């Protein structure tokens, strides 16, 4: 049996490879939305922030928790919304338009 740390390391390394494969296929045109979108995904630390804010037993923990939730939420909500705002601007040449 392998311990939880080693499982984590396995998962981390394999996820890096998956990330590498998937992201090298993103065309340069979409690199800015890729950054803002992946940025929103890195806001996944909201999961940890929620636990701190939801189980805090003293003032310090409450402050840390609320700050962490607020920061992570900005990251998540802002990141996904701005990515959507950008992606809806991308469109092809209208068919029947000037082709060459």
């Amino acid at each position, binding site marked *: 049996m392998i311990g939880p740390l080693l499982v984590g390391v396995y998962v981390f390394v394999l996820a890096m490879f998956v990330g590498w494969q*998937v992201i090298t296929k993103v065309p340069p*045109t979409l690199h800015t939305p890729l950054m803002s979108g992946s940025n929103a*995904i890195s806001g996944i630390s909201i*999961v940890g922030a929620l636990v701190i804010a939801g189980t805090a037993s003293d003032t310090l923990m409450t402050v840390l928790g609320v700050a962490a939730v607020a920061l992570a939420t900005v990251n998540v909500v802002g990141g996904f919304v701005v990515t959507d705002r950008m992606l809806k601007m991308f469109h092809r040449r209208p068919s029947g338009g000037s082709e060459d």
Partner: protein
Amino acid sequence: MGGTLFQLAYLVSAVLFIVGLQRLSSPETARGGNTIAAVGMLIAIVATLLGEHILSFTWIVVGAVIGSGAGLLMAQMVPMTAMPQMVAVFNGFGGAASALVAIADYLELVKGHEGIEVAHGVSIMAGVLIGSVTFTGSMIAYGKLQGFVTEKPVTYPLQKTSNFILLIAMLAAGTWLSLTPPAGQEGIFYFLIAASLVLGVLVVIPIGGADMPVVIALLNSYSGLAASAAGFVLENMSLIISGALVGASGLILTGIMCRGMNRSLGNVLFGAFGGGGGPQAAGGGGPGGDRTAREINPESAAMMLAYARQVVVVPGYGLAVAQAQHKLRELGDLLGRKGVTVKYAIHPVAGRMPGHMNVLLAEANVPYDQLYEIEDVNPEMADTDVALVVGANDVVNPAARDDPTSPIAGMPIIEVDRAKQCIVMKRSLNPGFAGVDNPLFYLPNNSMLFGDAADSLAALVREVKEL
């Protein structure tokens, strides 16, 4: 059993992130992909709220309301030109959140007078260090892009040495804290936090404004690694996976940006490029004063463009500064209706973050299938009648290709000098961002159309309409 169910929910969210990123491989599926990733995030959040024995929702709601409000406002208000700054801010906040998660975890150990496992300790210290560096580093990058921190590299004697000593001290503190029972070690822990925050500032201030795209991509990667570290702290696979995906993404973009400038990452981080008055290239034939650049008026330029078969437009950040994207698209459309093939050539470092120029043109309704990458457009240059350079400079500088002594030697360029005619729209003959002289301006097949990009484009549109 319930625990397993929630773990599976985290797995689903991680899979949705991967599927979402996969859909970014084409502009047609990208928007749906973003939504899929957002659903993945929602699943992870709901699983946490239901599965993690949350005692009180009050403070969660407070934090979430503040964060959602601020995030929504920023995302809706930000102009596309300011996207790099905003991504920097979001990066920083993500890093800070990860650092706070690690900090809170350590303080719980202190309070509970518990021991610390080495692996757990290392995860906490990594989370604090990477998260804090990401936070302050991103804030400085934001300041540099926004203009309230100097764009010039800030350097002082023994800079690298002192940063290195600080890093060693931090690693020593982190090692100590990972091996020692936490109770009573708060002082050292607070030192580690403070030193990490300071280090984030110190590593970004010596980097010039022109190199911020690389820095932002790298900090993007760090924000992912910080989330992964927080995942190791909490033994939460969803965080580990998501963080690794973002870490990989940021690294890839960092590599692309470095190749776009033909610089190594080390050179970007420690080279203090573009400082002071800037190095003057010896390239071409002596200083600019000896040579003459031919000037062209909008009327003749419009004539050249309208009777061309193919026009390649090379937009640079100057275009965005002048808010002239819409005028450029209008000109492109007019020429298209006259039977001219119009292509837009986008250099990887044309904007101020990876893919920035593409977003700016998309905002101006330029169809993405008219945008071409360097390697696709350069072979067509000889068959191009007119290359129109708008607000770009270094990315079309032939010295990068021809003059091995140029500071930008080896940087891939869009070879507008190989087009039959080239028109450069620019305010003056001043050197660009990197402070490098551009021999293109003095070539016989090049003409300069001086003036503000928006005004000049408006004049061109007027003239083309009258033809």
